[in-house]
């Protein structure tokens, strides 16, 4: 698949279509590995806290009978896999009014059980942040977790059950299933995870999905993710960190609307661990709950924190956006709120360009721009061949020693455009991130590209061949970025072409996540440009220069919509949170793409 998941138009499968497609699940899941017969001939009753009582009888390794809460018995197919002392079995319940099933993890050492009830066609209504009420796609698998135990006659119920955890937070793993499917997974939040499809997708992009983490013991955990707002498919497994092995299930419909209901085994590798920053006495064993009554999460079965940004994104054509741009295009005057929320910890502006005249000449027939700068916040420029100077507001930072990072609007551009320019006053190299309104999906999304070149200026002798260049040096690194004392997110540079951001909760637990494709440019050792458009989200571009020596970034935001076009400021102080060692999984040398 070479269409990014956030751009793919997944079919709105109806309940009837889903019911029909799920009929084969009555026979149980498929599996490339051999199913275990450990449960054959056995019966037991599972008692869950605040959930169902499940009475199971296993006829053989493929068929079971279930009675829920003492109700009538239902026969269905199932599959079971073992991982050390854990037995994991999965089945659906045929002919349910709402298509549903159970995925059950039994710990034979403790008799503790974790049950994931799953269902589709939920009809779940959901208020978005923009105040719209949406109905969740029927194909989105829902889940509810119950913690319980196997009832043993004459024994008291256990006092402690499995529970949610933050012990997995910050861990990264590579996995290869017995199906040949390979993924990189970064468990960077307690309610979400990043994943990179190394074999299913052609591009090295990461995605985010709501997730749960359950602690079995010090080395074993259960993980799930639901690809909400994408295919809605559900992946669930138990993993052992000692042996770096897994056993799990995948349920749902892929991009071709084909049913995937299979169990798998896999082997993997821990690729790193980020620090997690919550208080030391916080073990994450309580679910993250919303704190305000007005928040768009309703408590109840299946509740989870799901970010659905595109649901609130209003489509505009290129022309509509340009008309808005003609009415209002602002630079660095986007109001105090922009300064407060995204640039409270910005770097200072520099006047190092004042009094300078120079030409920036970009490669391969790229633009040639002549600059004449006489003020700290106003510049004059003209394109090669133009006779008239354009005057624009600009802001410039000294992002590193004699390294200038400045931005301005391109006068009367259509589509409206801005440039973010790195100008190295020591070696004469320059990089321009050209940003403009419009993608092939939305007129009100930004797009951008990098062009490399040299500066011609008195006292500078630029090289002929050396240039700034795209880089993977930030790959796997994570930084917290505090834009203000009230707003901090963690950037995780997940792949050479994408990154994710995660919002800290009040006690610095990692919460909501989203991600987007991006580019990374190396300007100097330890100094990088990151440019990202929050695709299928709000369409805004953030273009920052990251100085890892002082762990500070500074830069610009570019966005447009009904209210016009805005070139704004951003900047944050950071902390290095850790790094995943994942370079070996990326690059053109990797031959496994498109499997």
């Amino acid at each position, binding site marked *: 698949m070479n269409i990014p998941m956030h751009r793919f138009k997944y079919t709105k499968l109806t309940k009837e279509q889903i019911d029909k497609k799920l009929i084969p699940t009555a026979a149980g899941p498929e599996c490339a590995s051999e199913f275990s017969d450990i449960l054959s001939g056995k019966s037991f009753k599972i008692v869950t806290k605040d959930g169902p009582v499940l009475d199971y009888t296993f006829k053989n390794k493929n068929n079971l009978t279930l009675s829920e809460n003492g109700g009538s018995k239902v026969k269905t197919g199932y599959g079971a896999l073992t991982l050390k002392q854990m037995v994991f079995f999965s089945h659906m319940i045929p002919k349910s009014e709402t298509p549903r099933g159970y995925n059950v993890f039994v710990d034979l050492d403790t008799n503790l059980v974790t049950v994931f009830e799953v269902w589709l066609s939920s009809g779940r209504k959901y208020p978005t942040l923009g105040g719209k009420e949406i109905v969740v796609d029927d194909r989105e698998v829902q889940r509810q977790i119950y913690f319980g135990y196997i009832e043993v006659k004459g024994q008291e119920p256990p006092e402690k059950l499995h529970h949610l955890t933050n012990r997995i937070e910050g861990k990264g793993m590579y996995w290869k299933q017995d199906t040949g499917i390979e993924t990189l997974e970064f468990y960077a939040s307690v309610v979400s995870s990043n994943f990179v499809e190394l074999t299913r997708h052609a591009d090295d992009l990461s995605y985010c999905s709501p997730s749960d983490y359950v602690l079995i013991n010090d080395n074993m955990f259960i993980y799930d993710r639901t690809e909400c707002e994408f295919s809605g498919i559900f992946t669930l497994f138990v993993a052992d960190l000692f042996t770096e092995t897994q056993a799990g299930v995948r349920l749902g419909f892929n991009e071709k609307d084909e049913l995937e209901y299979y169990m798998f085994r896999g082997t993997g590798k821990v690729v790193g661990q980020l620090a997690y920053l919550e208080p030391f006495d916080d073990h994450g064993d309580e679910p993250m709950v919303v*704190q305000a*009554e007005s928040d768009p999460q309703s408590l109840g079965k299946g509740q989870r924190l799901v970010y659905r940004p595109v649901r609130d994104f209003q489509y505009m054509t290129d022309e509509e956006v340009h008309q808005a741009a003609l009415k209002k295009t602002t630079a660095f005057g986007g109001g105090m*709120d922009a300064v*407060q929320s995204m640039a409270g910890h910005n770097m200072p502006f520099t006047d190092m360009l004042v009094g300078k005249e120079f030409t920036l000449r970009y490669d391969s027939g790229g633009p040639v721009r002549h600059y004449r700068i006489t003020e700290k916040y106003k510049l004059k420029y003209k394109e090669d061949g133009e006779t008239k100077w354009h005057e624009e507001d600009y802001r410039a930072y000294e992002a590193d020693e004699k390294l200038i990072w400045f931005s301005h609007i391109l006068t009367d551009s259509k589509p409206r455009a801005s440039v973010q320019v790195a100008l190295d006053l020591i070696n004469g190299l320059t990089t321009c991130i050209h940003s403009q309104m419009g993608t092939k999906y939305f007129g009100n999304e930004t797009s951008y590209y990098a062009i490399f070149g040299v500066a011609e200026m008195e006292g500078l002798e630029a090289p002929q061949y050396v240039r700034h260049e795209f880089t993977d040096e930030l790959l796997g690194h994570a930084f917290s970025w505090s834009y203000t004392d009230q707003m901090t997110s963690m950037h995780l540079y997940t792949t050479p072409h994408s990154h994710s951001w995660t919002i800290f909760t009040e006690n610095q637990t990692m919460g909501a996540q989203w991600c987007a494709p991006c580019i990374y440019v190396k300007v100097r050792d330890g100094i990088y440009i990151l440019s990202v458009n929050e695709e299928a989200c709000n369409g805004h571009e953030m273009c920052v220069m990251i100085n890892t020596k002082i762990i500070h970034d500074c830069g610009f935001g570019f966005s447009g919509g009904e209210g016009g076009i805005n070139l704004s400021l951003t900047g944050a102080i950071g902390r290095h949170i850790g790094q995943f060692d994942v370079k070996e999984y990326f690059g053109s040398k990797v031959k496994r793409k498109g499997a």
Partner: protein
Amino acid sequence: MDILKSTSKPCDILEHPNTGRRSFMWKIGAAMSAVLASAVPGMSRPRIDRDKGLTAQVDQLFNKLGILEDENAIRRLHQTYENLLNNGRYKEVMNLFTDDGEVVFNGGVFKGKKRGVRRLYCDQFSSRLTGRKIEPAPGFRPGIEQQQDMVEVTADRKSARARFTYSIQVGAPIISDSILVKMARLQGQGIMKWWEGGTYEVSYVRDIKDSTWKIKRLEYRVQSKADFRPGRSYARPIFIPPFSKAYPEDQGGPDKLIHPAQGLRKA
């Protein structure tokens, strides 16, 4: 959590004022007056004078007792107000107000129980998690003289006014197009929080329908604001701009803007 799960109404005590000790006093008082009145024809003048004096003393006593009861009821009403805010039960707060009740907050007057007052508590406070009681910010603890709570009930016992100190957490949503802020809102954040200390200046009236006390006007009279949150050991004073737009221009804003100094008088 227990409080949230409780099925009892927070204002039960206010909705059933004629039960308990106070009601007993009223009944005894009425009965004694009746006895005295029926005994008057058979009494001699000095006795009548003495009895009249006694009656007046009893009435005075009962009035004093009634005022004390009223003061306690008002303190309980204020306690209910604070408890509801502490527990985020903003919708229930507005039920403590008269229909034409109003609140002065951050340079604006919110008028009418079902309009402005509702807007303040259910829109502004609810989305900002405002009003929760927290410890005073370090260095901002009010002096003893500032901590003198006061309740005064009028002689006719139809109205009252009170002053209570407060120390609360206040918040304002970070207004931004930033996706980070929107995501933070998803998990109940994206709110700039600060500490605020001052006094509530409150006036009350007795509801003639059920004889309960209701808040007629409540004013947050701010003394200090600081960038403090629980757990921090330091705090710095901060300036928070007052409301700059009134409703409906600001959908959650006050019905009327007032200059901060005006808030000390009736707007």
